[in-house]
């Protein structure tokens, strides 16, 4: 290798990417931080766009102090030119080459031109995306994803509606409901399909994670203060409205997850925020040929993937909240700094982060099991007429026909036969729903292009730049 300082490209400027960038930059590595958003922060510390004049953005975040430390650290490294931040860059492919890796990114928002960054190592910190399961009426205007509602609140400070129901399953529903309420919406119900028994059964894990419990308690207190009625083991069965959302039907679920007849009630609302948890973003890792472990990228104790020179940290490796992303990012950054400068890292140096990682991983594994236990029978509510893939307007009936009479047995064949998941979002939105209705496993989609790329960009490669 030449005398140049090794370059680590960090993709994603959320908690994991920032922690990784800071750890590596402090240890002699040039960092290029590439992110699709206009500002650093990722999903959790998503910044209100400048110029919108948010007076107290901290009111929308807790853990504001962690963010301030990350922000200050980033500013210091930026000023010292140890870190370059390429914002508004949408990475569509990371290419393996004999002498390193090249990151190809489209320049936003038009995404018509591409830049290439050559690096010695890459840290994938691309986070996760929301899982939404279909139900009758879910395509009505006024129905938004839980994360979408939160992003609107944090990024644009727009209040999506006035009377809101928050529904689905998973820990995200809590901050979304309190966030909406704090911003002035009337949250008439938080409808969670998991039941109390799902949580009490795992009491031992909760006892081992007091800070996380405290966080839950804070949310509970906030919900009380905003008079948000929380109903456990209930689900929204249907959204109603002609032009846009007018009301939803909510019902209790039996222990099997089926709605209990006679418990249905109508709740009037103009906004429904639904979410069923998050899934890791793995497109870039899959294009590189990294092994997956379940839905996330598989990594070792140093956060290395099985592809040489490629690390992964944060929710791209599995869903676990911002604190876990910070710990993983930190470890990845330190490992990369050592490995890229030709030394073997000593894991004892990051022992505190490794301990946090172990604790948080087991906490989230238990949380995941608690929430996953519930929406078992949701597909029975999906009528044949319900559109499951919005881009290609494929109904649940068409998916069922592909399985029932045309011999599809896996998600890929269902997609080929129905075109579900073939549209603009490439199945990112509908895949869990389509797999559920088809009754087959949610298998990795092998998306080799992480973003749609103009053919002209593909045909005329950009010259890779190495930061000076």
């Amino acid at each position, binding site marked *: 290798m030449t005398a140049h300082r090794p370059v680590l490209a960090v993709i994603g400027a959320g908690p994991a990417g920032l922690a990784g960038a800071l750890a590596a930059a402090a240890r002699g590595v040039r960092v290029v931080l590439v992110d699709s958003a206009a500002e650093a922060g990722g999903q959790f510390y998503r910044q209100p766009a400048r110029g919108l004049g948010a007076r107290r953005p901290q009111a929308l975040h807790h853990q504001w102090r962690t963010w301030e430390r990350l922000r200050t650290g980033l500013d210091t490294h930026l000023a010292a030119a140890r870190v370059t931040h390429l914002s508004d860059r949408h990475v569509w*492919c990371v*290419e393996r080459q004999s002498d390193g890796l090249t990151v*190809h990114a489209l320049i936003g928002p038009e995404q*018509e031109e591409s830049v290439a960054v050559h690096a010695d190592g890459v840290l994938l910190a691309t986070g996760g995306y929301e899982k939404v399961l279909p139900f009758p009426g879910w395509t009505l205007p006024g129905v938004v994803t839980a994360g979408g509602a939160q992003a609107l609140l944090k990024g644009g400070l727009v209040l999506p509606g006035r009377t809101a129901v928050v529904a689905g399953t998973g820990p995200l529903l809590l901050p979304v409901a309190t966030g909406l309420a704090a911003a002035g919406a009337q949250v008439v119900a938080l409808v969670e399909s998991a039941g109390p028994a799902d949580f009490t059964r795992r009491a031992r894990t909760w006892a081992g994670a007091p800070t996380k419990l405290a966080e839950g308690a804070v949310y509970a207190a906030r919900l009380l203060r905003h008079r948000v009625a929380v109903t456990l083991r209930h689900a929204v069965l249907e959204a109603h409205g002609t032009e846009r959302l007018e009301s939803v039907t909510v019902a209790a679920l039996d222990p099997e997850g089926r709605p209990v007849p006679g418990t249905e009630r109508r709740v009037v609302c103009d906004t429904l925020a639904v979410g069923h948890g998050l899934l890791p973003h793995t497109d870039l890792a899959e*294009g*590189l*040929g990294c092994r997956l472990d379940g839905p996330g990228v598989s990594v070792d104790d140093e956060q290395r993937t099985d592809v040489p020179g490629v690390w992964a940290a944060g929710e791209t490796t599995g869903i676990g909240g911002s604190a876990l992303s910070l710990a993983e990012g930190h470890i990845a950054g330190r490992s990369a700094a050592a490995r890229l400068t030709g030394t073997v890292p000593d894991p004892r140096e990051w022992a505190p982060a490794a301990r946090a990682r172990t604790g948080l991983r087991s906490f989230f594994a238990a949380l995941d099991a608690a929430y996953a236990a519930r929406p078992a029978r949701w597909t029975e509510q999906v009528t044949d007429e319900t559109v499951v893939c919005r881009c*290609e307007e494929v109904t649940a009936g068409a998916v069922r026909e*592909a399985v029932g*009479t*045309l*011999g*599809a*047995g*896996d998600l*890929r*064949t269902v997609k*080929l*036969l129905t*075109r579900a998941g*073939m*549209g*603009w979002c*490439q199945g990112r939105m509908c895949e869990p729903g389509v797999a559920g209705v088809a009754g087959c496993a949610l298998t990795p989609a092998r*998306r*080799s*292009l992480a973003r*749609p*790329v*103009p*053919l*002209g960009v*593909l*045909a*005329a*490669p950009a010259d890779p730049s190495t930061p000076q």
Partner: protein
Amino acid sequence: MVVGAGMVGAACALYAARAGLDVILVDRGPVAGGTTGAGEGNLLVSDKEPGPELQLALLSAKLWGELAQEMGAAVEYEPKGGLVVASTPASLTALAELAAGQRAAGVSAVRVGADQLHELEPYLARGLAGGVLYPQDAQVMPTLAAAHLVRASGARLQTGRTVVQVLLDTAGAVRGVRTDRGDILAPAVVNAAGTWGSEVAALAGVRLPVLPRRGFVLVTEPLPRRVRHKVYAADYVADVASDSAALQTSPVVEGTAAGPVLIGASRERVGFDRSFSLPVVRALAAGATRLFPFLEQVRAMRTYLGFRPYLPDHLPAVGPDPRVPGLFHACGHEGAGIGLATGTGHLIAQTLTGRRPELDLAPFRPDRFDRADPLDRFAEEAPPWIP
């Protein structure tokens, strides 16, 4: 008993059932889970030189036309015709010679002057030398086609079941197959296992050297119809017939019923390597934008790849295996298995029912590699010091 529910197995099942046989179709995955679900659905006569493959293509094109009467819309059959263009006078001359030979073999091939190209394809690049229009070229959606042919056959479909052995009686004749979920007895077994046809042949103790040839396809965002025919550059024909292991990309550009434009496909012999190759995809994009400059602004949404099943002489194996009574082969169709499926299924059904096949099957004999030049062995197992 047909092994493999890809396009070829589906067609064998359909024509065998229509010939009065009771058919069981077994696949270790779902319908079209192999190469059929990973390629395009061009039904081409234009890319074939005169010879046995072209005869099979012409028979198949006729049969596809008949099937389209029954289920054309369901399988997205479009008799849109192919347009082969030449960029230089020299390549136009070569193309015209090929077309003349094809015409003599029964293909309709119409010369198109440089000034007429844009009447056929308004968005085509300027400055091309001319072309040939092939009205018999058509297209289907392969996965839909396989699924609907299976359904129409009424065959008993058993997916998720792997054939692990071909059962032979004491005289060495087929009596069925062993699967991971029990035996299935049948007096005739058709090997329609595509790229894995060599493995199924080996389960019956015979050699059939089917090998993979990788291909990538690029898929664009959905567009209003701007590409009317299947359009490709004249060098494509040379690529198809090529023996080289190196990468070849002279893409066929076509619109689909669903809106996206398909650009495919590359050809490389790299074994079963599934990793994404940006240089290959770049070459496809470059070839397509040279033909249709408007595509530069159009976005590629995804790519997919598959492994074409090929035999060393680039002809499929179709017909009974003289080495094992009761064993039939229908595999090794390389980049034309969708197009050639109907003719193959029809010929297999004729031989299964003891009738005289409509085409001479000698060029497709499955045991032809046994009789091959002994030097072939060396060609296949190149010594390690040869790069």
